[in-house]
């Protein structure tokens, strides 16, 4: 049995279902290889055999050419695009060799159809595979429910919620999550949100797009029952792994993502890592000036020396630095200008709303003065989920905004432009 009952980690069955769903519009040219490890003799499918088998897919996974899933029954599912069929054949040769003394593989010698491998063309068999995956997911959930009643009672159901319950993030769990992240296809988890200039009632002008990993989605797919807030230090370590995986996903992807006008969240240590140097290499010369690196204040102050070095290097290469996620209370403590950062993100929340509305209070005036001194054009108001956020932000002299409401306005703009265009064609 590959996954032990103690693992509160994440069923690969769920990951598989999720992945298949995302592939719905992209089935053409995709295939699935099912390696029936569970049918091998018990002696031939011990943990070390399984590990080695899964690892043979690593080179392809790391290059973003396919996605591997290790199911609870030890079967391996590898989903890939037809154009790497030869590479997959090479892996099959390796696996055949690895398990050659098992009776299951004797059939192949006799010219009979393989019972160890089965192939599926998703163009034709998508629904069948999805159903199979869903069935396996359901079985896995039931198995876990039997073995760990408490976990299932707390977990399950609505992932959209900001539920902070769950098992604590321990070093063991962190280790497993880091491993899972190393295998995961990050492109599925990347989201985008626009930072726009909004002056008065004018249309929002997109300035750049933030690429980020939705922690909520991460929790849902990889770590459903873990309370990430339970250990801030381990969470920080997790973000380092996340950053590097995002960078490597960006390094592989289409030019569109890397042509500029984007921001990415990074740890200082990631900027100093070889992965970042690769990222730097992959960016077109002219594009660097429009790429923003977003850093957390915790990270900056944890090692100011490293931050300064990373900042100077990033500036030297043409990147801009943004300090992320400051509440209004923190603003006096973190001086963007002194730190030599180009931008800062101020978080919109209820306490900020109240502060601004109490216009005549000394704190409100102090905040306004502070923003003006530090450069309103360098401050982005984020998490704007209402019109009020934008309006009150504007009253503070701010002109750059990000958040669900900004996305809503942009979407509405697009819709009205599209319908106007349609109207004209009549």
């Amino acid at each position: 049995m590959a996954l032990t009952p103690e693992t509160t980690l994440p069923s690969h069955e769920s990951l598989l279902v999720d992945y298949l769903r995302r592939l719905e519009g992209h089935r053409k040219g995709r295939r699935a290889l099912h390696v029936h490890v569970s049918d091998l003799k018990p002696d031939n499918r011990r943990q070390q055999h399984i590990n080695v088998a899964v690892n043979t897919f690593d080179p392809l996974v790391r290059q973003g050419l396919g996605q591997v899933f290790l199911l609870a029954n030890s079967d391996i599912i590898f989903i890939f695009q037809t154009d790497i069929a030869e590479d997959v054949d090479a892996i099959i040769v390796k696996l055949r060799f690895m398990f050659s003394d098992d009776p299951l593989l004797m059939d192949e010698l006799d010219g009979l159809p393989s019972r160890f491998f089965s192939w599926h063309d998703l163009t034709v068999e998508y629904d069948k595979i999805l159903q199979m995956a869903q069935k396996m997911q359901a079985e896995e959930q039931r198995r876990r429910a039997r073995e760990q009643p408490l976990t299932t009672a707390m977990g399950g159901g609505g992932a959209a919620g900001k539920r902070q319950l769950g098992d604590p993030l321990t070093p063991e769990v962190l280790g497993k999550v880091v491993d899972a992240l190393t295998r995961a296809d990050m492109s599925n988890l990347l989201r985008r949100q626009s930072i726009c200039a909004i002056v008065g009632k004018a249309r929002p002008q997109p300035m750049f797009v933030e690429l980020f990993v939705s922690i909520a989605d991460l929790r849902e797919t990889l770590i459903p029952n873990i309370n990430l807030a339970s250990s801030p230090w381990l969470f920080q370590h997790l973000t380092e792994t996340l950053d590097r995986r995002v960078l490597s996903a960006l390094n592989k992807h289409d030019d569109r993502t890397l042509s500029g006008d984007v921001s990415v969240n990074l740890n200082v240590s990631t900027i100093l890592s070889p992965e970042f140097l690769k990222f730097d290499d992959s960016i077109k010369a002219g594009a660097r000036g429009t790429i923003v690196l977003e850093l957390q204040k915790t990270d900056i102050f944890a090692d100011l020396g490293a931050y300064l070095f990373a900042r100077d290097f990033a500036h030297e290469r043409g990147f801009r630095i943004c300090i992320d996620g400051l509440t209004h209370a923190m603003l006096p403590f973190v001086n963007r200008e002194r730190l030599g950062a180009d931008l800062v993100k101020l978080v919109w929340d209820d306490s900020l709303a109240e502060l601004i509305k109490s216009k005549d209070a000394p704190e409100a005036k102090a905040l306004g003065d502070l923003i003006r001194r530090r450069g309103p054009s360098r401050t982005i108001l984020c998490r704007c989920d209402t019109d009020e956020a934008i309006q009150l932000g504007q009253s503070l002299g701010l002109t750059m905004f990000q958040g669900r409401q900004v996305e809503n306005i942009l979407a509405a703009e697009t819709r009205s432009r599209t319908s106007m265009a349609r109207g004209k064609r009549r």
Partner: protein
Amino acid sequence: MSITIQGMEGRDQISQENLLLDAVNRVGRARFGWIAVHIHLSQLRSEHKRDSHIRIALRMFDALVGTYRSQIFLLSNSDVMVLVKDVRLADLDAIVFKLRALFSEDPLTFDDPADGVDRFCTYYDLSRDFGPFFDLCAYLSTQAETRSASGAATGPLPLTPKTLSEVVTAVSTTNIAPFVRRQAVVGVLGGAARICFEEFFVSIGDLRSSVAPQYDLTADRWLFQHLSQTLDTRMLAHLEQSMRFGMPKEISMNLNVMTVLTPAFQEFMDRTKGMLDITVEVQLADVFADFNSYFAARDKLRDAGHKMLLDGISYLGLEFSEPQLFEADMVKIIWSPALADLQKEDRVRQIKDTVLTVGSEKVILARCESDKALRWGLSLGVGMFQGHFVDSHLHAGVGR
């Protein structure tokens, strides 16, 4: 005329120094137009000499390598050697300038007006100085061999999430008494020096040697922070036990901000009430991780009649943050020679202002290892001192 070529015979290892020597030999046959630059990164302070920094420094030469016939060598001592032919000096200077800027926090990059010698890098015009340069390279090569022959022992492994788990378990079941150290904080205001309180801390080095000798506990910052939470618990347990054997009344301990807000800490305060005057020392970096918790912890301590001390303020911390804003009961500045090396007037004035605003009687200069440190602190009006230098004076009879 030919030069004796010292080949690679008898050298098993292909080191960068050997490759350099090889290249220099080749250049020697037609040395006109070649320039060598020796960048003395090995002389940087250890905190600036990290692999990541060196890797990035090498990047600065990309432009050179793409434009001119050149070779770059990263020597085993971290020095960088550049050989380049027919280069426009302005282009070379531009790169060296950028490198200097990258490492600008290190005194190595400062100009030394006294003897005019640039300690950061040395240029050689090989058409003139080939001989001495060749000798230098031969010397570096020999040095490198000696270094590698003496054997690089496999260093301790950095912690990973998995191994952290083992170490946490080991520490949580260890009696940390053998690893607990004390150091006095001495006040100098108002005439006679006196002990203000004693700091209790864990010697991580000794703990590591005993409990986890194969691991480098501090290599990964976040994992170490997580481990420190377990250390907090052990320290509190140790202090309570030690009460029975006699302890000073005024003490301080290093804790995570979050630990102060735990029920366990509340119980500790309750059980030691009236017997201990506690100062909790929290790291600046920890405070920045969670402001709200810091203020809550500070107020909680004050309500119980105890104190909050803001620790870990380095000379960079002084430049980029304003400790006085945190309104802690005391503030601890960590001495480093870089503080005395500060040449810029406005930075020195800024630090003086910080000390004044916080209040001399609330500022401690820690890690005073020398007379220089003490004098610097006194010149800035610092009121309390801590460190080996202070300890030795204490034993000489300056006491309560």
